[in-house]
């Protein structure tokens, strides 16, 4: 099957039905390994056992930004090529991205209280992630409340592309401004600053979260394709009833 064939929703559904069980099994296996390694990881010399929150917070933060990246590519597909599968991909990714951003904010807050002495501070990193969460809610509102689905999709795609400006702001906020949030520890000049005993569980959890995202995204895309089929069949039913 050529990649271009996947642009056909029926062929895409066939592929998703085949891939999804394997992807779900791999995700569960990686989470099992990652969680065991996370629980066995040593305490941090400064933060103690609270470093275990990092194994949830950091992957959720990465995914909150990656998901917006996926939605931005889908938004281009919607606006430039007007491809229905691109719109399906954007709409299916938004709730998943919003959930990961919510996890990032809550776990960060729960990690901040014992580490910084406060649940929340209006520094550039925390505020820009909160803005990302509000942008997710805005996109969801456009998808879910628009009377005309086509117009709602185009408006959501425009908001997604405008909101993409926030992603580099989140990434570099700790370098551009003085923040209570620490600077990057892994993807930074001079290599990572984390001991392998903590780094490996973190990387395994990050891959597990990434696979979870793709599993949920593909499953949500399948649901959205079916929902659109239901919608078109109901329109046909209504037209036939009127004729």
């Amino acid at each position, binding site marked *: 099957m050529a990649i271009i064939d996947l642009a056909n929703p029926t062929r895409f559904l066939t592929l998703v039905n085949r891939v999804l069980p394997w992807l779900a099994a791999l995700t569960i296996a990686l989470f099992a390994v990652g969680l065991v390694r996370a629980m066995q990881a040593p305490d941090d010399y400064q933060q*103690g*056992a609270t470093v275990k929150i990092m194994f949830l917070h950091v992957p959720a933060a990465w995914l909150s930004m990656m998901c917006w990246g996926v939605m931005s590519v889908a938004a281009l597909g919607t606006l430039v090529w007007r491809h229905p599968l691109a719109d399906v991909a954007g709409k299916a990714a938004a709730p998943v991205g919003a959930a990961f951003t919510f996890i990032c904010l809550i776990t960060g807050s729960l990690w901040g209280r014992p580490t910084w002495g406060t649940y929340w501070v209006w520094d550039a990193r925390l505020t820009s992630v909160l803005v990302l969460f509000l942008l997710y809610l805005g996109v969801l509102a456009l998808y879910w409340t628009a009377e005309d689905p086509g117009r709602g999709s185009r408006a959501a795609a425009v908001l997604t592309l405008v909101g993409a400006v926030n992603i580099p702001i989140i990434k570099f906020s700790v370098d551009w401004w003085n923040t209570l949030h620490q600077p990057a520890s892994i993807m930074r000049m001079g290599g990572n600053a984390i001991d392998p005993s903590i780094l490996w569980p973190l990387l395994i959890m990050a891959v597990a979260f990434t696979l979870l995202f793709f599993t949920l995204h593909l499953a949500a895309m399948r649901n959205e394709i079916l929902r659109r089929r*239901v919608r078109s*069949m109901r329109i046909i039913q209504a037209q036939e009833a009127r004729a």
Partner: protein
Amino acid sequence: MNLGPHADFIVAAYAVTIFVVAGLVAWVVLDYSAQRRILGDLEERGVTRRSHRKDEQ
């Protein structure tokens, strides 16, 4: 495993994450079965998509 004096924060972080992820999984699974059921009902009533009609012709 000793979670130290801040165990409540660690447990709460894991509990919130499990709750949200379980909610996402439940949403996807329930939505799938709901859409399949509605599609089945429509097909039983003889409603077919236009692309299927083209195939039949």
